[in-house]
């Protein structure tokens, strides 16, 4: 009984882990290869050109790669921070006050979750270009800040984590609503807001279409878009493939580090509705 339970299931689980780690292992190995080696040697044999590849990546068009990395960090970091703050304030208000229009606002937001990005992207582009904001950092940042999904999560979390009695007590003691929100409610919501931040960080970092449509100047590209344009040129300049591979590795390392550090803060129970206060 014990063997049957422990053996095969553990093997299946480890197989899944191997499948998920395989491309990451491959890119670590592939980044050590020169262009010739990339296409000639056995896939999983280590090459000798990691330093040379990194040097080339660093030198590529005056270090534009690092600019892309910095841009990604800016879009995702600042965007997610603003988004978490906005979600916290809005979610709290929707959970803790009953006011005219609450249902309408909430339903509109939920419908917003379902609207596909492209339906928004083209008119967003046109509107941005009307006010002269296309090809600016703001054109990518602004649409990332309001996250219907983040507001939904914050509302669920506020309802569960901020006790009514505490709010009432503060009110009786004469605290203003803004003060209750800032000093009592938001601090209680921090674990939920960290989740919102992480979700938004990943989704902004992953967002391809928005910068693809909004940006023309490759100095403002996030790293995903930058690497994509390099891959496209690889058709005619195979040497770029090596740089794409090395760049992929370098771009993924901070994400993996962030993920491993923060993975226990993911409150996915929010999503499955199993929140316990």
């Amino acid at each position, binding site marked *: 009984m014990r063997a049957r339970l422990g053996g095969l299931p553990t093997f299946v689980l480890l197989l899944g*882990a191997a499948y*998920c780690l395989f491309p990451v292992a491959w890119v670590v190995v592939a980044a050590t290869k020169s262009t010739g080696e990339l296409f000639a040697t056995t*896939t999983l044999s280590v090459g000798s050109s990691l330093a040379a590849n990194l040097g080339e990546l660093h030198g590529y068009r005056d270090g534009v790669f690092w600019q892309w990395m910095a841009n990604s960090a800016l879009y995702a970091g600042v965007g997610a921070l603003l988004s978490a703050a906005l979600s916290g304030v809005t979610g709290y208000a929707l*959970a803790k006050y009953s006011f005219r229009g*609450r249902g309408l606002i909430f339903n509109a937001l939920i419908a917003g979750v379902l609207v*596909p990005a492209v339906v928004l992207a*083209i008119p967003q582009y046109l509107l941005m270009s009307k006010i002269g904001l296309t090809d600016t950092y703001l054109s990518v940042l602004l649409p990332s800040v309001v996250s219907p999904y983040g507001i939904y999560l914050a509302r669920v979390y506020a309802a569960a984590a901020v006790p009514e009695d505490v709010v009432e007590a503060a009110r009786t003691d004469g605290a203003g609503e803004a003060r209750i929100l800032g000093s009592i409610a938001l601090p209680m919501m921090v674990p939920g807001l960290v989740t919102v931040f992480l979700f938004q960080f990943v989704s902004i970092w992953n967002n391809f279409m928005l910068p693809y449509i909004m940006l023309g100047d490759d100095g403002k590209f996030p790293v995903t878009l930058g690497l994509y344009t390099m891959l496209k040129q690889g058709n005619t300049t195979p040497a770029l493939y090596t740089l794409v591979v090395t760049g992929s590795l370098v771009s993924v390392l901070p994400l993996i580090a962030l993920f491993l550090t923060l993975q226990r803060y993911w409150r996915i129970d929010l999503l499955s*509705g199993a929140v316990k206060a």
Partner: protein
Amino acid sequence: MASTRAPGRGGAAPKLAPYAFVAPAVVLFLLVFALPIAYTVYLSLFRTEVKGLGLGRGSRSEVFVGLDNYARALTDPELGAGALRVFGYGAILVPAMLGLALVFALLLDEDRVRARGFSRIAIFLPYAIPGVIASLLWGFLYLPGTSPVNQLLRELSLPGVDLLSPTGIYFALANIAVWGGVGYNMVVLYTALRAIPRDLYEAARIDGCTPWQVAVRIKIPLLAPALVLTSLFSVIATLQVFAEPTTLAPLTNSLSLTWTPLMKVYQDAFGRGDLYSAAATSVLIALVMFVISFGLLRVTRSRAFGGER
């Protein structure tokens, strides 16, 4: 949702505060969501009329054409073909991803299985990797020149598989999405499993149920709401697939620039500069998504959001 009791007993009943709190989000929402949606619908009803050679001021004008753009979109064979391709891709992706996620979640929930912590993090890890980067990595793993699978097959004197062929590309794309999404769905399902009271299993075990029977007869039925939610999000993500085929396109001739409806929308808008057709197609895609989403939720009698309001 645990409690959204109406305040108003004791203290000063706040009248303006909630409006002040929701105002920034509402303003941004209107600007970034509502206005663009309204603008898309507006655009979809117009077309550019070109007079003469189309040169000079006033030779191009916007004319109202009603539902003409919709009629053309609905009868566009390339759009229909794209919709079929996404359907085929989703038919591979969604069952594979959710099936694997369910299996992994059930295994994680078994106390006697080993290496659970490691596997959970390893399987969840690809979620942190952007679709573009995932497509780059898998793209090289698919390329006959760099693919380890083909190398292995060659050494065994077996014919190689070409995942970048017109048929193989469905599996190639689905695999990228499975790889990126299985861990996330696994964690959602696993979290839902942990919320089920353990005594239920104890009772079943005393009645002589095997772990397999517990999983099939108790756990999976209780997971239904979480499964509905994960399916819903998976279907929505499937319909929105864009980055992966766009990234793989430079590596193969099997992916046209209009392979999915969204790619066609992009091409219409920015490749051909026909914003009106692109807008009409966008609205159609959005409508399909709404119908599917609400359909799924209705079929399951809103069990996923059942605790709300």
